[in-house]
């Protein structure tokens, strides 16, 4: 799902992420330990919500709010395995083309109307209608066979696809069902930006654009009620401001910069009030090499450049071990990850040798290698506002210089950068992806997927990889899929269409009055089930000591 290469826009790239170490579960020994109802949770939004219409959700922040207001057809649990949501049961045909969902008969929208098959059908139609501009969600349903998709009865719906896709079921997690009787009236794109009617456990109490979204718990929620009475989502875009607000108790949770997390996590003055957590999500950073740029078309050059990345030092000193070097397109938590593929080591001498075999040597003695009289100058684009990007680029610049490569850093604002990437008008760019639960990398590396058709921003093309990606997305046998993706991992690692850098663990600070916090493998704190819906607030009295001097 889309979830977003928000990094492109927000330069989140840096916070990264971290291994599973469920340090503390919700069992702490104050009170009697049992969850309490009530209280107000103040969450942080790094950017304002652009729409409350969940079908138009375009950032993770839109989705954060939607998670409270709507219920998806299926939830993903802690391990990102499908579990019942609005659908209490489902059946997939053997050919993977037909999905039959049975709706929970208790389910109601916040206006009291029951959730019916017609509502699901309506929502699906809205998702695939190009006029909706459901840019984040629509691609998950691009293979939908609308003619054969139908309501079997009031509570049963059959969804048909033209082509089977192995990871299809997980995309139903994005199907946040809308009440047709509300959303069919008025302008679908414009009239539901600031109001919402859903079947989720909360209703919208207040929305102040640019400031906050306030949600109140539904008294008549149809399944397990969450504990927290009021959820305030506050827009705090600045990282330092958010940290300070967390300390003063103005917000209850925020992502933290790695340095800050590392420095403060053992600060005794904060140990009473703030809990520090870290975990890995399906997010990684990489350098995109535009393979239309002649010097970068040679995989040896790309590999040599990757050898200039001081990855060990980055992981050790920049992230203090809270990041992992990547060897290819999959993260170590995924089943598609092939553990036998080695990470490319930092080796400047080796890089120089490899460049020499590719024909790049320093003929004129100016310290920069040349081929046919052309020096190897590269422009690396980084996003303005990205601290990690800046740090990484400056470090790489020094390393590459020693291997005879002149790296020029361009700081470009997000929109201009995308413009250049889509047009192929760049040489190298430091980017990051936030990936779907299913390891289908077809849109990223298939030769047909160059922008604007897909996200093959590097213009990579390899017939074997193409074939593996085609097989991988349609193969239904999990064992065979694993084999395919393990091979794909090897092929991509050998070709180096990206220089994969690091998967950085996300660091979080949470006020200790918030209890019941847990992480999933891949999604972090939010958007899985029950995730944030299981949180509760420790009763007042304890609240007094949350403001530190």
């Amino acid at each position, binding site marked *: 799902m889309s979830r977003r290469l928000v990094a492109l826009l927000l330069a989140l790239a840096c916070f990264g992420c971290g291994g599973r170490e469920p340090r503390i579960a919700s069992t702490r020994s104050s009170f009697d330990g049992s969850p309490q109802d009530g209280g107000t949770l103040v969450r942080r939004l790094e950017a304002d919500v652009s729409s409350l219409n969940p079908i138009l959700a375009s950032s993770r922040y839109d989705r954060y709010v939607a998670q409270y207001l709507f219920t998806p057809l299926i939830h993903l649990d802690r391990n990102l395995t499908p579990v019942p949501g609005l659908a209490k049961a489902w059946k997939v045909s053997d050919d993977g083309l037909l999905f039959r969902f049975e709706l929970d008969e208790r389910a109601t929208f916040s206006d009291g109307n029951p959730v019916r098959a017609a509502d699901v059908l309506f929502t699906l139609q809205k998702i695939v209608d190009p006029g909706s501009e459901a840019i984040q969600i629509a691609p998950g349903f691009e293979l939908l066979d609308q003619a054969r998709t139908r309501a079997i009865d009031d509570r049963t719906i059959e969804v048909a696809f033209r082509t089977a896709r192995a990871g299809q079921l997980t995309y139903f997690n994005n199907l946040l069902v809308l009440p047709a009787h509300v959303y069919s009236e008025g302008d679908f794109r414009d009239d539901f930006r600031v109001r919402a009617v859903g079947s989720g456990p909360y209703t919208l109490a207040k929305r102040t654009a640019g400031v906050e979204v306030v949600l109140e718990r539904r008294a008549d929620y149809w399944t397990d009620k969450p504990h927290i009475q009021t959820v305030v989502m506050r827009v705090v875009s600045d990282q330092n401001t958010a940290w300070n607000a967390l300390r003063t108790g103005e917000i209850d949770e925020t992502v933290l910069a790695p340095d800050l997390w590392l420095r403060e996590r053992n600060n005794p003055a904060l140990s009473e009030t703030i809990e520090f957590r870290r975990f890995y999500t399906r997010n990684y950073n990489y350098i995109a090499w535009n393979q239309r740029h002649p010097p970068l078309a040679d995989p040896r050059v790309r590999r040599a450049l990757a050898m200039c990345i001081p990855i060990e030092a980055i992981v050790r000193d920049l992230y203090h071990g809270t990041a992992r070097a990547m060897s290819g397109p999959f993260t170590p938590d995924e089943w598609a990850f092939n553990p036998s593929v080695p990470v490319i080591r930092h080796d400047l001498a080796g890089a120089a040798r490899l460049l020499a075999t590719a024909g790049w040597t320093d003929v004129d003695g100016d310290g920069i290698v040349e081929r046919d009289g052309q020096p190897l100058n590269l422009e690396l684009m980084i996003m303005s506002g990205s601290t990690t990007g800046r740090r990484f680029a400056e470090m790489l610049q020094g390393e590459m210089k020693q291997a005879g490569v002149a790296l020029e850093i361009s*700081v470009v604002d997000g929109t201009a950068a995308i413009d250049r990437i889509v047009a192929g008008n760049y040489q190298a760019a430091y980017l990051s992806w936030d990936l779907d639960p299913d390891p289908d990398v077809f849109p990223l590396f298939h030769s047909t997927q160059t922008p604007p058709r897909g996200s093959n921003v590097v213009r990579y093309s390899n017939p074997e990889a193409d074939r593996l990606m085609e097989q991988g997305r349609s193969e239904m046998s999990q064992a065979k899929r694993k084999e395919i993706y393990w091979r794909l991992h090897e092929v991509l690692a050998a070709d180096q269409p990206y220089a994969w850098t690091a998967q950085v663990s996300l660091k979080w600070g949470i006020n200790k009055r918030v209890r019941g916090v847990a992480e999933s493998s891949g999604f972090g704190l939010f958007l899985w089930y029950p995730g944030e819906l299981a949180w509760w607030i420790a009763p007042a009295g304890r609240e007094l000591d949350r403001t530190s001097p």
Partner: protein
Amino acid sequence: MSRVAPDAILLNGNEPAGESYARVSWRRFGRNRLSLVAVWYIVAMAAIALFAPFLATSAPLLEKGEDGWRSPALTGRSDLDATQRVRSFAIHAPVPVSPTVIDLSVRLSPPSWKHPLGTDDLGRDVLSRMIHGARISLAVGLLATLIALVAGSILGAIAGYYGGAADWIVSRLIEVVLCFPFLFLVLAIVALFKPSIYTVMIALGLTSWTSEARLVRGEFLRIRELEFAEAARASGAGDARIIFRHLLPNALAPVLVSASFGVATAILTESALSFLGLGVPLPMASWGSILASAREHIDYAWWLVLFPGLAIFTTVAAFNLAGERLRETLDPRSS
């Protein structure tokens, strides 16, 4: 500020014969000690900026290698070479670290003997970066102001000298630029062109010429009817000659004052731009970009906040004080 007797005499008009206007002005200027301090501070900063490559570099200033004496700092050999070469004797720069030398193992260290102003988030020496940052900040400040000065003077001169349609057009142009949200203009220019120190200079220069233009125009309106302009015209001098040889020098005094304030503003704006991440390209350091890198560590790395902030503040204050004093000095009505 105590007044010294000879100055008092000077003031009363008993100027020693033959002393030039510039000399008198300088002496009047110097009567205020604080402004003298400001001027010397600017001179010192300029010297630091000018000699930055020799004040803060990993390359030895002078060394004796196998093949005799040489100066790696002067010949601009790469820093890596310098540290790896075998040498028997070497004189190092006062700050023996280049501003781009990265050492992750000492990142974010507080001030110490080895790093008097601490290190930044890549372990680079802050003092070294600030010395080189002075180069960027001053260069941007001075050149942006120069651009503004030249553009403003020419447009103002044209408007003031020819009047009529030319004046009308320039006046409208000034109005448009004045009413234009300045930051937008800068953002657009920075986004349009390849990010470089020159882009920043041009962006700042193109947005700040209006006050100079207005001043020159006003002065020209005033003095073009005066005797010496008439005389020049009578002797058959061309327009360009009259403007540049006769009128412009006479209008220069107020413009210089405005330029002095302009430098201060440009330095402030450059640092604000760098602070917003839109300033000089990497890995160059300007004071604003060091401050920006401190943003993430502000509650901890106080040295990253304090020193560059102080540098910006004191330099801007020095230019402002000097400008103010210059204004007082050149203003015949003020005492």
